[in-house]
């Protein structure tokens, strides 16, 4: 029973949890950015989608009563957000206002068609639904054609999805790095606490008991990471406000709160689960071999 100084639980090259905390914070920050994009993309694309106009262009010989009857029957459909009937004269009037030219005088007749203009609910403004709507409207014999900006509709969805996938991919990669980082930190922590752990093992502490302090630490670290990441996102939101003030009006504070809470939960989960897994893994090994 020689006295060997240094065989203690307090003397150790203290493992640094800093990298793990920053790593988890980085993953959360990216996830959070993705979340913000998704939240706002929905709002943004909703905004765009509902500003897209579907023009139901009517044949030249259609009577006003017929047109209004059609308009009224369309108005009751669920995809309609707003609808208006634009007669030939109104169309000419608008054209004049917009381009400042009285071309009717020039041409001696009105070349514009009467139309029913629909703005759809965002939910229905997607290529598939629009095709169905178009088909059903074209069947009406007073309808000449349907016109809307086809390209715009499909691109909106696609771009958001692409950016999302890229960010998600980076998140997954980073998460793997973080798990390795945490594993390494735990290995060092357990090595430097090996006398404490050995004592616990020999007197009959369960693995769960031994893991508890590491687990508690990891919960704190996970929450810490989340707060760092949230601070970063708040910074970004603030910066976005300065750049695009009009964005702040469509901000969804409820969803942002949900996102932040979600980040805290995910942060704690990543930290706790990977820490616990590592502790259990290393408890199966000989502690002296950990270094």
């Amino acid at each position, binding site marked *: *029973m*020689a006295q*060997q100084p240094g*065989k203690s*639980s307090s003397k150790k090259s203290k493992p640094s949890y800093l990298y793990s905390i920053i790593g988890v914070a980085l993953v959360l920050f990216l996830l959070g950015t993705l979340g913000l994009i998704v939240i706002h993309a929905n709002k943004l694309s909703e905004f765009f989608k509902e500003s897209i106009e579907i023009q139901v262009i009517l044949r030249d010989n259609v009577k006003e009563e017929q047109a209004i009857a059609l308009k009224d029957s369309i108005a009751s459909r669920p995809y309609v957000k707003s609808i208006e009937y634009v007669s030939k004269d109104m169309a000419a009037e608008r054209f004049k206002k917009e381009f400042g030219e009285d071309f009717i005088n020039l041409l001696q007749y009105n070349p514009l068609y009467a139309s029913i203009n629909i703005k759809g609910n965002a939910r229905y403004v997607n290529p598939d639904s629009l095709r169905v709507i178009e088909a059903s409207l074209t069947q009406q014999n007073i309808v000449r054609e349907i016109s809307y900006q086809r390209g715009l509709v499909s691109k909106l969805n696609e771009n958001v999805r692409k950016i999302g996938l890229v960010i998600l991919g980076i998140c997954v990669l980073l998460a793997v790095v973080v798990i390795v980082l945490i594993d390494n930190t735990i290995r060092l922590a357990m090595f430097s606490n090996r006398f404490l752990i050995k004592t616990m093992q020999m*007197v*009959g502490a369960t693995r769960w008991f031994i893991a508890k302090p590491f687990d508690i630490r990891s919960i704190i670290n996970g929450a810490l990471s989340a707060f760092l990441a949230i601070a970063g996102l708040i910074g970004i939101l603030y910066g976005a406000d300065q750049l695009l003030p009009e964005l702040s009006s469509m901000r969804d504070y409820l969803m942002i709160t949900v996102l932040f809470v979600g980040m805290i939960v995910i942060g704690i989960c990543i930290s706790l689960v990977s820490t616990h897994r590592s502790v259990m893994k290393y408890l199966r090994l000989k502690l002296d071999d950990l270094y």
Partner: protein
Amino acid sequence: MAEQPIIQLSNVNIYQGTSLILADVNVTVNKGEFVYLIGRTGTGKSSLLKTLYGDLSLKEGNGTVVGFDLKKMDWKKVPFLRRNLGVVFQDFQLLTDRTVHDNLKFALKATGWTDNKKMEEKINDVLDKVGLNTKGFKMPYELSGGEQQRVDIARAMLNSPKLILADEPTGNLDPETSDGIMQLLFRISREEGAAVVMATHDYILLQKFPSRVLRTENGKVTDHASVTFV
């Protein structure tokens, strides 16, 4: 009369990795017995003890220790086996960053004790039994080697074990101090009714404190039921 033995091993083969260390071990140790496990270094004393406290899994043969079936041991059950044993090592150190009292308290907490009053009572009780009731506040480095080993023994006694496994507990001690430790272990065995299995390669101790001997030799364990010494 049919009290279950504290240790029962039958046809046990003990391996380190893939190499067979001890073959066909048959050992029975009864309540309150004091048994030496003697043999040269490297003959498998520690391996046998490790099998008994669940550090080496039992692959071949059958065994029970303090009522636990070694065949059915897994990492979930090992802690509970160990709570029914006391283990003392040559190098099973105290935690040097806390007092004797806190070392003992740490071990109690690690095994599920929560009641402060009961823990204090238990700590005083075991320190009393090893003759260190006035030294609870000391740091381990303030104690002599013999005193430290007594604290180790006190720690082993915390959960009132029916069996104490001691692996060369006197290995680092001078002869007089060793005698004190031996007397303590014998007293515990007698007064607490705990069986003690003590590994040593120190034949002189056997002469001074004769008792039953198990010998590890040539990959076998031989039983010398009562000690006669050559």
